[in-house]
C-alpha cells in the first residue's frame, strides 16, 4: 500500500482536521463525531440538512458542507457507516426549530445507523425526516437484497435540497423534493482497478491488466460482473443503455448529465468519455441542460467512472443552478 498517510488508524481524523484548517471561517470540526459542520448553523428559519455514510468518497460528503448544500456530515470509517451515536449527536447539534433532513444512501449499515440515530433524536423531540437515495441501476432491487445502492446521484439530492433549504423551504416540502430527485436520477459505475482502504492495507479486489469490473458501488466492493476491458465508447454504450432504459428516459427529456471519476482516473479521460456520452444522449433525443465532469463521489484511488442521468423539471433545474459555497467548487 502506497499512500500519503501516517498511522492508518488516524486517516479519517487527520483528513477532517485538514478540511477544517483549510476553511476556518466557514467550517468547524468536532472530532468525537467525525463531524464537519457549518459555523453558521443552526439557523432559526432554515431546515438543517445532514448526511453520514462512510469516508473514502471525498468530496462526498464532508467537502460539500457549506452554504447551499449540506449543513453537516458525520462520516464513519473508510467505507463504513458512522455509529448511530454520531448520527444522534450530529442531529442534536444541527437541529433548528424547522427540523432536520437526513439524506441517506441506501446501504444496510447507513440505514441501521440513521434509523437508530433518528429514533434517539426524535425521543428528544427533534423532528427528523429522511430521504433515501438509491440511484444505482447495476444491482437489482428485490425482496432478497437490501435494495439499490445510493451512489453519485446523491450529489443532485444534496444540491437541490440544499438550495431549497436556503430559501426557508419546510421540512415536509424538502422531503418531497428530495424524493422527486431520487425518482428521476439513475447511475451506473465501472472500475479499471480496485482500491485499498488504509486500515485494511491491501486492495479489496484486483483486476488483471485486461479486465474491468462493471456495476461497481462506491465502497470498493466488487460489481456485478468482471469482463474483458473494452474501448471507452463501447463501455459507455453499455452503461448508457442500462441507465437510460431504467426509468426510462425518453426523447424530449431535459437532463443533467454527470461523468463522475472514481478517484483514480485522470480528468482527461473523464472528458474523453463526456464527449461521446454527450453525443449519444443527444442522439436519443434528450436535451442536456446541465453537465458535471469531475470527481464528485469517489472510492479512494479506484480508477473508473460512473454515469448519472437526472431528468429535470424547471424547479429542480433552477435549484441546481443556484449559488453554493463549499470546500470544493464545482459549479
Amino acid at each position, binding site marked *: 500500500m502506497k499512500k500519503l498517510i501516517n498511522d492508518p488508524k488516524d486517516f479519517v481524523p487527520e483528513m477532517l482536521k485538514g478540511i477544517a484548517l483549510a476553511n476556518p471561517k466557514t467550517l468547524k470540526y468536532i472530532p468525537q463525531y467525525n463531524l464537519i459542520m457549518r459555523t453558521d448553523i443552526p439557523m432559526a428559519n432554515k431546515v438543517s440538512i445532514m448526511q453520514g455514510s462512510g469516508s473514502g468518497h471525498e468530496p462526498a460528503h464532508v467537502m460539500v458542507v457549506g452554504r447551499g448544500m449540506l449543513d453537516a456530515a458525520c462520516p464513519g*470509517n473508510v467505507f*463504513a*457507516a458512522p455509529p448511530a451515536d*454520531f448520527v444522534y449527536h450530529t442531529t442534536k447539534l444541527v437541529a433548528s426549530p424547522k427540523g432536520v433532513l437526513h439524506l441517506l444512501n441506501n446501504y444496510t*449499515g447507513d440505514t441501521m445507523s440513521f434509523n437508530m440515530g433518528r429514533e434517539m433524536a426524535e425521543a428528544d423531540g427533534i423532528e427528523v425526516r429522511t430521504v433515501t437515495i438509491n440511484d444505482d441501476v447495476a444491482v437489482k432491487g428485490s425482496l432478497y437484497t*437490501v435494495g439499490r445502492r445510493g451512489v453519485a446521484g446523491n450529489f443532485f439530492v444534496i444540491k437541490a435540497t440544499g438550495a431549497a433549504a436556503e430559501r426557508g423551504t419546510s421540512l415536509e416540502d424538502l422531503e418531497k423534493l428530495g424524493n422527486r430527485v431520487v425518482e428521476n436520477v439513475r447511475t451506473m459505475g465501472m472500475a479499471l482497478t480496485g482500491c485499498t482502504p488504509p486500515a*485494511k492495507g491491501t486492495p*479489496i479486489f484486483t483486476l488483471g491488466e485486461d479486465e474491468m469490473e462493471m456495476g461497481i458501488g462506491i465502497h470498493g466492493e466488487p460489481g456485478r460482473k468482471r469482463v474483458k476491458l473494452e474501448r471507452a465508447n463501447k463501455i459507455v454504450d453499455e452503461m448508457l443503455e442500462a441507465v437510460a432504459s431504467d426509468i426510462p428516459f425518453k426523447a424530449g427529456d431535459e437532463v443533467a448529465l454527470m461523468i463522475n471519476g472514481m478517484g483514480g482516473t485522470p480528468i482527461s479521460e473523464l472528458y474523453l468519455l463526456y464527449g461521446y456520452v454527450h453525443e449519444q444522449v443527444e442522439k436519443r433525443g434528450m436535451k442536456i441542460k446541465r453537465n458535471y465532469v469531475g470527481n464528485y463521489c469517489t472510492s479512494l484511488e479506484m480508477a473508473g467512472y460512473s454515469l448519472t442521468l437526472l431528468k429535470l423539471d424547471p424547479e429542480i433545474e433552477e435549484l441546481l443552478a443556484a449559488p453554493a459555497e463549499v470546500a470544493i467548487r464545482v459549479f
Partner: protein
Amino acid sequence: MSKDVEFVVKLIANTVIKNEQYFSELDGVVGDGDFGYSIARGFEKVVNEWDTVDHSLPSNTLKGVSIKIIGAVGGVSGPIWGTAFLRAGIALGTKPEINREDVIVMFRAAIEGIKKRGNADLGDKTLLDALVPAVDQLEKSFKDAKDTGAALDKAATVARASAEATRLMLAKRGRAAYTGERSIGTLDAGAIAIAILFEAISKAWKE
C-alpha cells in the same frame, strides 16, 4: 454465574481484537474489508473502558457493553452486535445470578434482536447461520446432560460446521448481496466470527 457473564464478555472482546486482521480479510473477499477494523475498535473501547460500566448486575454489564459498541462501531456491525448485547441484557432483567436456562434466554433474545435490526433470517448468509444452529445445539445439550463444558464443545463444533457451510450460500444481506451469484464460494465473515467465539469460549471453559 454473574462473574461468568463478565468473563465471557471480556473473552469475546479479546478474541475479536486478536482476530481483527483475519476478520477484515474475510470481509474483503466480496465485501469492503471493514468488518475486522470496525468491530475491533469497538471491543477495544469495551476493554479499555471496562471500569466505567456498571457491573452490579449481569444485565447492566451487557447493556453497558451494548452502549459502547453502538457508540463506537459503525457499519452494520455496530447496530447488529450492539442490539444483540442490548437484547441479551434486557432479557436478564434484574437477575443477580444466571443459570443455564438464562444463557439460552439471553442467546434467543440476542438472535431476535439481530433478526429484527438486520431484517434478516436463517439462510440469508449472515452470522445468524452459525449462531442459530449453535444455540439450538447448546439448548439441546443443556437439556440432555449436566456437563456444561461438553455442551459448549458441541455448540462450537456446530457453529464451525455451519459457518463453513456459508461458503455455498448466496448472500442476501450485507455488501456481499450486491455481487449476486459471485457471493457463492466465499465464507461469511460474521458466521466465522461466531464460530471463532464459540470455540474460544469452549476452550476457556475447560481451563
